[in-house]
C-alpha cells in the first residue's frame, strides 16, 4: 500500500518507505541479493519514525489526532467486538450519523458502545458532519446509556470530535441542553462507564459522552477546552497563533495525566495508530478488558460514589480555610 504523505513531518518517513518498496521491486526482477540493504533501510526508517513521533509538538499531535487515516470508532468496534449491532435513533425524530452507538460483545460480555464518528473522505465526512454531533446525537447516546443501565451492560465510549455541532438548527434543538442532561445523567448510571479519547476530544462535545469511571487517552490524542484555533483568535486575537495556544492549553495525554484529568495513557505503535491500526485496536481491547474487570469488582454504590468523587476532585484552587491545599489529585 502506498501512503500519501499527508503530514509535513511524515514526509521523510514516506520517502524512506517508497525507497524500500522500490528496492524490493528491483530485487524481485533481478538476481542481486539486497536483503542486507533492505534490512538497514528498514531499521533506519523505524528509528526515524520513533524519533519523530517521540518529539511531536502539541500542534503536531493535533495533526496526528486529526489524521484522516487514524482509526475511527467504527474501525475499532469492528476489531474489538465479536458481535456488533449498530442501533439507531434518539426516538425524538432523528438519527445522528456523527455519533453512533449500538450493542456488542467484547471478550465474554455484552456491552453498549457509543462514539463520535468522523468520515474517511469528503463525501463520508459530509454525511458524518465531520464528527460534530447534533443534539439528536447526544440524546441518542443518552437513550443507549439508559438502556445499558436497565440491562446492566457496561458502557464503552469513544471520543473523537472537533466539538459539538455549532449551527442554527443545533441551537434551535438545544445543543446546550442535550449535553447538559448527559453530564448530569451519566452520574446516575449504575454500570461501569469507560471513555477513551481515540483522536480529538473537542470541548463540551467530547464531554457530552465523557463522564466516565475511567478516562483513557491514546498517546497522540488531544483533549481541549476550546480548539486552539478558537483560543488563539480570542486570547491572542490572531488565529495564526494556534500552535502557541495548543502548547499553552496543555492538551496532550501526558499533560492531562499530570493534571489528574485522565486515568491512563495508551501507547501507540511507532508512527501513530494510523501506521498500525490492528496493533492499536489490540492495545485498546486489552485496556478495556482490564478496566472492565477492575470496575466489575465494585458494587453499584461504590461505582456511583467513586465516579462522583473522581470528578469532585478536579480543579486546582487555593482554600485558605482548609487545613491543606485542596483538592488535588
Amino acid at each position, binding site marked *: 500500500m502506498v501512503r500519501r504523505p499527508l503530514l509535513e513531518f511524515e514526509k521523510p518517513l514516506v520517502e524512506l518507505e517508497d525507497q524500500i518498496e522500490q528496492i524490493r521491486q528491483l530485487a524481485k526482477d533481478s538476481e542481486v541479493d539486497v536483503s542486507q540493504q533492505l534490512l538497514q533501510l528498514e531499521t533506519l526508517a523505524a528509528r526515524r519514525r520513533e524519533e519523530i513521533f517521540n518529539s511531536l509538538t502539541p500542534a503536531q499531535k493535533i495533526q496526528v489526532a486529526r489524521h484522516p487515516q487514524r482509526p475511527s470508532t467504527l474501525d475499532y468496534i469492528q476489531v474489538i467486538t465479536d458481535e456488533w449491532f449498530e442501533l439507531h435513533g434518539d426516538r425524538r425524530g432523528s438519527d445522528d450519523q456523527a455519533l453512533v452507538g449500538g450493542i456488542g460483545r467484547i471478550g465474554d460480555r455484552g456491552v453498549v458502545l457509543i462514539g463520535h464518528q468522523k468520515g474517511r473522505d469528503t463525501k463520508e465526512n459530509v454525511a458524518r458532519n465531520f464528527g460534530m454531533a447534533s443534539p439528536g446525537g447526544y440524546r441518542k447516546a443518552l437513550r443507549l446509556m439508559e438502556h445499558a443501565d436497565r440491562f446492566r451492560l457496561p458502557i464503552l465510549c469513544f471520543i473523537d470530535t472537533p466539538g*459539538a455541532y*455549532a*449551527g*442554527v438548527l*443545533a*441551537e*434551535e*434543538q*438545544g*445543543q*446546550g*441542553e442535550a*449535553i*447538559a*442532561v448527559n*453530564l*448530569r*445523567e451519566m*452520574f*446516575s448510571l449504575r454500570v461501569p462507564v469507560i471513555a477513551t479519547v481515540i483522536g480529538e476530544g473537542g*470541548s*463540551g462535545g467530547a*464531554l*457530552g459522552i*465523557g*463522564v466516565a469511571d475511567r478516562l483513557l487517552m491514546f498517546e497522540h490524542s488531544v*483533549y*481541549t*477546552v*476550546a480548539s486552539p484555533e*478558537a*483560543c488563539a483568535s*480570542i*486570547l*491572542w*486575537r490572531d488565529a495564526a497563533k494556534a500552535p*502557541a*495556544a495548543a502548547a*499553552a*492549553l*496543555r*492538551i496532550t495525554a501526558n499533560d*492531562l495525566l499530570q*493534571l489528574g*484529568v485522565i486515568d491512563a495513557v495508551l501507547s501507540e505503535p511507532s508512527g501513530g495508530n494510523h501506521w498500525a491500526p490492528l496493533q492499536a485496536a489490540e492495545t485498546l481491547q486489552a485496556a478495556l478488558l482490564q478496566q472492565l474487570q477492575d470496575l466489575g469488582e465494585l458494587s453499584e454504590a461504590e461505582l456511583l460514589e467513586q*465516579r*462522583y468523587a473522581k*470528578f*469532585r476532585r*478536579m*480543579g*486546582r*484552587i*487555593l*482554600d*485558605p*480555610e482548609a487545613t491543606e491545599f485542596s*483538592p488535588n489529585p
Partner: protein
Amino acid sequence: MSLFDWFADRRKVNPVVRATQEVEDGDGLWSKCPECGLVVYRKDLIANASVCSGCSHHHRIDSEARIRVIADEGSFSPINSALAPTDPLAFKDRRSYADRLRDTQQSTGLRDAVVTGHCRLEGLPLSLGVMDFRFMGGSMGSVVGEKLTRLVEEATALRQPLMIVCASGGARMQEGMLSLMQMAKISGALQRHRQQELLYIPLLTHPTTGGVTASFAMLGDLILAEPKALIGFAGRRVIEQTLREKLPEGFQTAEYLQEHGFVDLIVPRTRLRSTLASLLRLHGVSAPVAA
C-alpha cells in the same frame, strides 16, 4: 419610513452588539440608557433594579446588586468567599493569567467570578449563586466550579431550594481542561440535589453561553431568563463565519429560546423577587419556624 420607525428599528438592534457598548455605572449622578437614550437620576435607576423606566432595557448588574435584587435585606451570608484561583497551567497568552487575575481581583474586589451563599427571600430559605460578568467575562474555572459545587452540596444537605444566576462566556480557557471538567463536577452535584427532589432554578442573564449553557444553566427544574438576554451554546461569530449560515432574527435571545422550548419564564427584573417567592411557595418551600 418615518423618523420614529427608524428609532424603533435601531432599538431592535441585536442585544449582542449592545452588550459591548454598554456603559457600566460610573460615579456620576445621572445615567443615560444605552438603548433609548433616556437620562435618569442614578438613584432612581438603581431603585428600579437597574431597569430603564423608558424602554425596560435591563442594564447589566454586578453580583452585589443582583443579590440586593433577590435576597431579603441583610439576609445573604456568603460561603467559601476566601477560595482563590491558581494558575495550574502557568498560562500566558499576550499577558500572563497570573497578571490578569491580580488586576481583575483588584479592579472588582472579587476573588473569582462567582459569589455563593444562603439567604432569605420573603422569609423563605434559598441557596444562591451569582456569577459576575465583570470577572473575566464570568468565565468558569476551578474556583467557579468548586464554589458552585459546594453550594449545591450544601443546599442538598440543608434540603434547600437553589438558584444560580448565570452570566458567563463559558469555560475559562486559561485553566484548560480543568475548566471543562467543572461542567461535569457541578452537574454531578445537581444530580444529587435533584435526586432529593429539591428545587433548582437557574436564572439566565445576559450573556449565558458555552460551557455554562451546556451544563448547569440548562439543568433547572424550571428555567428563568431575563428579557432579551443572549443565551446560546455556540458563539454567533462561530456559527456565522465557519458555517456561513445566516442567523435568524432574534437568534439566541431569551425569547427565541422560550419559543423553542428551552426557557419556562421570561421574568422582568422588577418582578423577579415576587415571581421567585411565588414559585418557591408553590413548590412547598416555607419559612422556618423561629427557634
